[in-house]
């Protein structure tokens, strides 16, 4: 029912992290955006800020709800998706693509090991 791509790892609190060699991209899952409904606001850290796995890094608000965002991995923010400030609906339309939130410097591999696989996350949302 919800998309849960295999090319990334997931956190129980519904954030994903996907990586190439250099950077990690962070956002919220398809399940999460559907639960929230129409996203109307995101509050994100600034470039250069450090985020820590399991700690709050921002806020996402839909018309009906306000939710904290928790960092799936630790690292330093290198890029923020400022497009979301004007078009927060991208989180609903394309959570794994244009609706990404942060790019951070790749942290420890151990960070990734603590996360759920697509299968494990899918089980949680069923």
């Amino acid at each position: 029912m919800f998309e849960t791509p295999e090319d990334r790892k997931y956190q129980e609190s519904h954030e994903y992290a996907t990586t190439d060699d250099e950077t990690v991209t962070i956002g919220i899952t398809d399940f999460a955006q559907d639960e929230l409904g129409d996203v109307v606001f995101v509050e994100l850290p600034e470039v250069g800020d450090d985020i820590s796995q399991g700690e709050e890094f921002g806020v996402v608000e839909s018309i009906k709800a306000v939710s904290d965002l928790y960092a799936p991995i630790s690292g330093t923010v290198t890029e923020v998706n400022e497009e979301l400030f004007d078009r927060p609906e991208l989180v609903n339309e394309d959570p794994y693509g244009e609706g990404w939130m942060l790019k951070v410097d790749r942290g420890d591999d151990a960070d990734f090991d603590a996360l759920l696989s697509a299968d494990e996350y899918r089980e949680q949302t069923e």
Partner: protein
Amino acid sequence: MTLLAATEHTKTFLVPNQAISMAHRKPPLYDVYAADATFTEFGGWDMPVEFDSIRAEHAAVRESVGVFDVSHMGEIVVTGSDATALMQRLTSNDVSALAPGDSQYAMLTDESGTIVDDTIVYQLPDEETTRYLFVPNAGHDEEAYRRWVDHRDEWDLDAEVRNETDAWAMLAVQGPDAPDVVDAATDVDVTPLSWGEATYADIDGVRSWVSRTGYTGEDGFEILCPSDDAETVWSAFEGDVTPCGLGCRDTLRTEMGFLLSGQDFDPVEEPRNPYEAGVGWTVDLDTDFVGRDALAEIEREGVTETFVGLILRERGIARHGHEIVADGEVVGHVTSGTMSPTLGEAIALGYVPTDLADPGTELSVVVRDQEKRAEIVSTPFIEDN
């Protein structure tokens, strides 16, 4: 992502369907649309919060037409030779001004003039007796019923009071196209009804009370029909009309600056009188009702706080409970706030000192410890249709 409740209201919006307690009341249409909607608890009822998306449903009501199940609203019927006297003494407006088929908006106040609930009072056509129907908010029907019965007995009036909430379903068909679709569904011409007027009409054989009223700021009708026949009436609007949940009902009414009982006023959490809540026009001091003397004095002396609209001038969303700040001091608080789907701006309702209530006044709203610039604006926030 963990739900951080901005308000009790929004907190309940994300309760998953399976977590809904068996103890809640269910509207008669629950099983009809259960598979198509997300639900929330509201006033002790399990009600649809959205079918498709709040934004899409909001737009449907502003631009064409939507239908809401609002069967969580109460229905209390009052009849008998003293029915008018009983209604007059328990509501703020002048019930004697009503003719059969008319309605009026009124406050229920306590002895101190504090609003307990707001309601629409209808006088129903009846050749045998004087008959009123009034509509308390969700979860207020039993207290309203007891209040009416207790006062009737105390004042020794001849009136029968019945809580018929479970016997009735209520649908709201709202939007610029509502007259067309309601007229097509009914056996009588409803288009001549002016705002606030109502009539009996058959919808696919179901005798219904059709009233030109609503809570969205759009033209529209509210339809009362027997619970057992609710599906027939709901089906009459299938296809042409967008099913809508309480989520967009809230954004629509907030854009209009309409009060929400239990949130913008509440006898315990947010005690307010009709003058500070901006509904002094529903108070007729020439009638004798519970709270009248206290309100006469408040009216004479003027209010120190006033219900206002605000627009945030910085990125952020004001929500219920957020503080309103002027020159570094907390001067008031937000009672309702959301992103306006029509304007694309963060709008809020709340109370501020009367000397800060003029449109154009610049204040701040504290959102997660950050002051966001805001400006008082007149309501409705959008053009009034």
